[in-house]
């Protein structure tokens, strides 16, 4: 079988084989290729502008590890952009402690300013205690509170953008999940636009990289640390979507990218934000489409 596994650029043994266009790359050229694809997406979609203060959600897990490493490279050629890493401590025993340590190692390496904000500080208690009698809802409650935590952090540290480590797999899975739930508003909502005076635009610079590429990148960079899985990780639908898309990707390479392209095509033709000024929560005053926001609802403040 004629299969020389060599880097198409330098001729060293290849670590990866990529599609579209097909190429083999050694470790160094793969890391450069991955960084350049993210930089290109940032510039093409105006995700970051000169002078921006970018809040980087840094859990310490694999995706945010890649995000801080790649954005740290990006700011080398964009010195007017300032990064500030924020770790949300939800208060999940025997899980978050390890990832916070990983986050601390990363900010030490990259030199990025780092802040930690806890659910206890913002919402009065740990996630463990907030969901003690409703563990089956822990993932969705945590998601609502984490989003608010990042919004609060952006306000506190005067950030212009919130960058999160969502990858191509996450995005493709979300599209399929929204379809399976019949949730068109979530499918077409584009949070990268922001809402002037209300919420800070959220950007996903790693959405051009697959989960496999991200893990390969941080392994080759020497920052891969197997961390414990969140004890509340029981999102059955996402796990099924992940498995189905994985099977399709294996059989039809490019499936993930095509799913996301399809969603982006829909967004171009359908208004993704309600017209007029959004409402505010009657309890906390934050942006909401209803009378009471989701944070106040999950904290039972409306009862």
């Amino acid at each position: 079988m004629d299969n020389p596994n060599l880097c198409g650029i330098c001729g060293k043994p290849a670590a990866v084989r990529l599609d579209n266009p097909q190429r083999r790359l050694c470790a160094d050229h793969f890391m450069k290729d991955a960084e350049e694809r993210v930089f290109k997406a940032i510039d093409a979609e105006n995700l970051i502008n000169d002078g921006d203060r970018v809040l980087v959600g840094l859990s310490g897990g694999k995706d945010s590890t890649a995000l801080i490493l790649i954005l740290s490279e990006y700011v080398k050629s964009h010195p007017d952009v300032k990064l500030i890493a924020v770790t949300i401590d939800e208060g999940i025993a025997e899980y978050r402690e390890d990832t916070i340590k990983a986050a601390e190692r990363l900010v030490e390496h990259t030199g990025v300013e780092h802040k930690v904000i806890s659910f206890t500080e913002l919402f009065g208690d740990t996630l463990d205690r907030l969901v003690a009698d409703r563990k089956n809802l822990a993932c969705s409650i945590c998601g609502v509170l984490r989003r608010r935590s990042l919004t609060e952090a952006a306000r506190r540290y005067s950030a212009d953008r919130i960058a999160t480590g969502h990858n191509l797999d996450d995005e493709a899975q979300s599209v399929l999940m929204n379809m399976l739930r019949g949730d068109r508003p979530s499918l077409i909502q584009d949070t990268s636009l922001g809402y002037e005076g209300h919420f800070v635009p959220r950007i996903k610079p790693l959405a051009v990289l697959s989960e496999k590429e991200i893990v390969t990148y941080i392994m080759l960079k020497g920052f891969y640390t197997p961390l414990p899985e969140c004890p509340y990780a029981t999102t059955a639908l996402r796990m099924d979507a992940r498995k189905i898309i994985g099977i399709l990707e294996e059989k039809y390479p490019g499936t993930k990218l095509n799913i996301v392209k399809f969603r982006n095509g829909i967004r171009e033709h359908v208004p993704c934000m309600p017209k007029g000024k959004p409402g505010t929560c009657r309890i906390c005053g934050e942006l909401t489409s209803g009378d009471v926001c989701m944070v106040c609802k999950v904290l039972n403040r409306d009862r």
Partner: protein
Amino acid sequence: MKITLPDKIIIERKIQPSVIRDILKSLDINPSSVIVAKNGNIVPDDVIIEDADELKIIAFAHGG
């Protein structure tokens, strides 16, 4: 050949020279969901592996 599975269990298999992805499929592992290392180096899954080599299969946890 020594194979380290995603759950860190090590198995021994006698093999003829084979493409890694065929070995993954024989273990019921989707090649797109794992990273493989041949003798300690990350390689594409269409690389050929022989009986004297070591194969490590790394799965990545969801989330992060």
